[in-house]
Structures are given as structure tokens and as C-alpha cells.
């Protein structure tokens, strides 16, 4: 068992030596893998960060409660007082039809025309500011449903449709990143597969001789698998470095914008867990690519 581990260790360091002896070729392959892996990684981080921004925005949502037209001033005030007692509600503002009409006249520019109306068509309105503890669209929705259940309420509208839409769009984008990741993972397998295929072809004679003197397929595969594994891992780590570099270049401007909006938002890179996953995926894809490439040649050398 120790002999087996020792042989693996020997091959590992031998492969490492091979890679450093042809630095340009190794670096080119690693760079291509890095760029290929950096693309989905960067998009993933973009989505995660946008998600965090939008979560922060949920807190500033407002709910408009349009009451039934026949609700009088006193009933509306009572309702507004009842709503104010709800734990998840921060503030309630009552806007009477008269106030609403005045504001509408002022803002719409229809001033004179509106005077010709026989009666005020605008309903009484309550504007509810939910408390900060409601930080997901789901929780907000629940509150809206509760408010809507009041008999006096005609229409409850969450002024947060766009946040929900954003969340929806993010879901689509996230799925898109997944699909992109899968196709780019395939690209990494092909890149490494092709690199290893060339290496295998240039050492075809050596492989034939090793087979003739009794070398097993596992023995022949081992150095190529380590090459793929190492290149895949190095490419993944380079991708992380690339994404981190891009983020650090963007961090300044983004921070400045966030400060303008009095937000403490800052971009976040991959955590150590994410880095480990990225490196693991790179290693796996490299191993897979070389395994396929060597397997093809070894298959062609079997006796018929």
C-alpha cells in the first residue's frame, strides 16, 4: 500500500516537473482554462451581488391600500389606526380623496379639466411602510394578503413589483449561468482532452514500448491523468485570481455609487468554500478530459 502511494507521489512530482519544463505550453493551456472558467464564475458572482442589493431594497417597499370609495373619513382613520398596531408595520399614512385630488391636480397638469368632474373619483388611500424585518418578497406578500383581507380595502398594491420582477429575472439568469457553466465545462474537457491527446500522440512510441514490456493501462494513464488534474486545478485557481482582479478593479466605483445612495453595499468575491468548489471542478474536468484522450489511444492498441 505504501509502495502504491509512493509510486503515485513519484508520478505526481514527475508530472509537476514535466509541466514546469514546458512552461509556455503549460501556461497557455492554463490561461485558456482560466478564461473559460472565469466567465461562469464571474457571472455567478454578479448574480449573487445583485441578489444582495435587491434584498436590501425590499426594506424600502411601500404598500398602497386603496379603500372602497364609500368609506368615510372616520372609518379610514380607524382602519389606519388598526393597521398601525400590526407588528410588521412601521408607519401608516392616510391620504384622503381630497388630498389625493389636490396632489393629482398639481402634478398632472389637468387642473381646470378636473374641476368639471361631478364628484371626486379618487378613493381614500392608506400608504403602509412595512417594518425592516420583512426582507423577502414572500414575507411582504403575506402582509399584503393580510391587509387585503380587511373589508374596507378595495385594492392592495405592493410598490415592489419591480423587485419581484428582478427576483424573477435573477432566477432566469441563474439558470442561464448553469447552462453556460455546463457548456463551458464541456469546453474545458475538450481543451484539456485536446492538449493531452497531442501529448499522448507525441509519446505514442513510448506508450507502445511500455505496453510491450508489460506496463498496465493504469500505469500509462497515470502521468497523463495527473497532467490533466494539475492543469485543471491551476486553471481554476487562475480563474479565481482573474475574477478577484476584476472585482477589485470594480470595487472602487461600486463603493462610490453605493455611498451616494447611503448604502453600505460592497461587492463580495468567492468565499473559501466557493474557491474549493471551483478548484475541485477544475481538477475533475482536467482529469476527465485526459482520461478520455488517453482512453482512446489505449483502446486502439488493444489486440484484435
Amino acid at each position: 500500500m505504501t509502495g502504491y502511494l509512493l509510486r503515485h507521489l513519484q508520478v505526481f512530482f514527475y508530472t509537476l516537473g514535466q509541466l514546469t519544463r514546458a512552461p509556455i505550453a503549460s501556461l497557455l493551456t492554463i490561461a485558456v482554462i482560466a478564461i473559460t472558467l472565469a466567465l461562469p464564475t464571474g457571472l455567478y458572482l454578479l448574480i449573487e451581488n445583485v441578489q444582495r442589493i435587491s434584498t436590501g431594497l425590499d426594506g424600502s417597499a411601500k404598500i398602497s391600500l386603496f379603500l372602497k370609495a364609500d368609506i368615510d373619513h372616520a372609518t379610514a382613520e380607524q382602519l389606519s389606526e388598526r393597521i398601525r398596531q400590526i407588528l410588521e408595520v412601521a408607519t401608516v399614512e392616510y391620504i384622503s380623496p381630497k388630498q389625493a385630488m389636490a396632489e393629482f391636480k398639481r402634478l398632472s397638469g389637468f387642473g381646470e379639466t378636473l374641476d368639471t368632474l361631478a364628484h371626486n373619483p379618487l378613493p381614500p388611500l392608506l400608504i403602509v411602510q412595512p417594518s425592516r424585518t420583512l426582507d423577502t418578497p414572500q414575507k411582504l406578500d403575506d402582509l399584503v394578503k393580510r391587509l387585503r383581507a380587511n373589508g374596507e380595502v378595495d385594492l392592495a398594491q405592493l410598490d415592489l413589483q419591480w423587485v419581484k420582477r428582478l427576483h424573477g429575472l435573477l432566477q432566469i439568469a441563474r439558470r442561464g449561468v448553469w447552462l453556460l457553466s455546463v457548456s463551458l465545462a464541456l469546453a474545458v474537457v475538450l481543451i484539456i482532452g485536446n492538449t493531452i491527446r497531442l501529448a499522448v500522440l507525441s509519446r505514442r512510441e513510448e506508450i507502445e514500448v511500455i505496453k510491450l514490456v508489460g506496463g498496465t493501462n493504469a500505469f500509462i494513464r497515470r502521468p497523463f491523468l495527473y497532467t490533466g488534474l494539475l492543469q485543471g486545478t491551476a486553471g481554476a485557481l487562475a480563474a479565481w485570481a482573474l475574477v478577484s482582479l476584476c472585482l477589485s478593479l470594480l470595487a472602487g466605483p461600486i463603493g462610490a455609487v453605493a455611498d451616494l445612495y447611503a448604502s453600505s453595499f460592497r461587492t463580495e468575491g468567492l468565499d473559501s468554500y466557493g474557491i474549493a468548489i471551483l478548484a475541485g471542478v477544475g481538477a475533475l474536468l482536467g482529469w476527465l478530459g485526459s482520461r478520455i484522450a488517453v482512453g482512446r489511444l489505449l483502446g486502439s492498441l488493444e489486440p484484435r
Partner: protein
Amino acid sequence: MIQFNNVSKRYAGGLDALKNISFELAPAEMAFLTGHSGAGKSTLLKLITLIERPTRGQAIVNNQNLSRVTRRRIPYFRRDIGIVFQDYKLLHDRTAYDNVALPLVVAGVRDKDIGRRVRAALDKVGLLKKERAYPVMLSGGEQQRVGIARAVVNKPPILLADEPTGNLDQALSDEIMDLFHDFNQVGVTVLIATHDHRQVQRLGKHVLELKRGEMINDSSPGSVL
């Protein structure tokens, strides 16, 4: 040690490389496989080493029925057969020492044992002083002796050679053939494919002659002229 019973090999496209070949080599026997180019000598050696498989018939090598040796077992099967090639098939980016060590390395022999056994093999072929030399620095005869050292380094009971003297002059050919004879003297079964009739007559061993894939002569030493 090597036994063929009605073995045929037909390649895709209908070429019959070997037709109904039967012969037997006893343990520690030495034999020459002769015939013109294309007579089927190389094909026969490829069948023995499982580089190719027979289309029909039964072949038994080193007490193993070749049709029962699975893909997975082939490497282990080959470790008991030393093979020498006309073009030596040395690895040019490795020293003579590393070339000879290859069969031991692939078999997982421990490093300290490798050194001892590689030097013994190089000593046997008279190249102990050239262990650090790369193949390009060696003459054809020396390269072939490295090839032979590699073939015998893990002490296989069977030694095969495909035109081992094809690229060498007479004096060197004599040296190489005498080496094979020496190994045969210590109990190794040796089969050499050659069309060098001078060597066949000089050593006077069992001769198997092929012609267009058929065995036209299987003569023991006594009957050779």
C-alpha cells in the same frame, strides 16, 4: 513452452497471414523462424505476445491458453516474455540504464532492486560502462544489446526476437546471436525470426520455415543441413 494447434490469422480485408499453423517449442529450446518477408513471421510473433489474437486455433504460451488471457491480464502475461526488435524500439529521451530499467519500473519493482538487476543485465551484454549513454550515442550493435538487456532484465522464461540482426553487419550479428545462445544455455526458451540463413546454419537449431502463411518446414536440429 510455446504450442500452436491449427492456428490461423486472417486480417480484415481477407488476407490470410497464417494458415493452420501447428508447432511446439519445448522449455529451454532455441528455434529459428525463417521465411521471406511477408511469410507471416512477424504475425506469428505478434500472436505469441498477444499484440494480435488468432482468428482460429489454439495457442498455449508459458502454460497459458492465449484465448483465456483477458485484456486486463495481458500486461502481466507479457512480463514473462522478453521481446527484441529489429529497430530496437529504445526510448531516445532516456539513458541506456533507464531503458533497461523500464520493464522493472512498470512492474513496480523497488528502486534498490532495480539498480542491481539493471546493472546485471547491462553487464551480461557488455555495456555496463555505457549505462549513462543515450541511444543516439551508441552504435547499432550497442543499441541492440541495450534492447536485449531490456528484454532479459526481469528474467523471462521466453525470449522472442524479430529480425534482431536485420540492421547489423556479420560480425555484430554473430555477437548478438551468441548472446541469444547464451541465454538459451541457462534455460530460456528462445525463438528468433530471421532470414539470415548464415546464422541459422551456424547455430544449427530447430527451424520453423513459413511460406505465404503456411508452415513448410519444421525440422529438428539433426535434420538441418
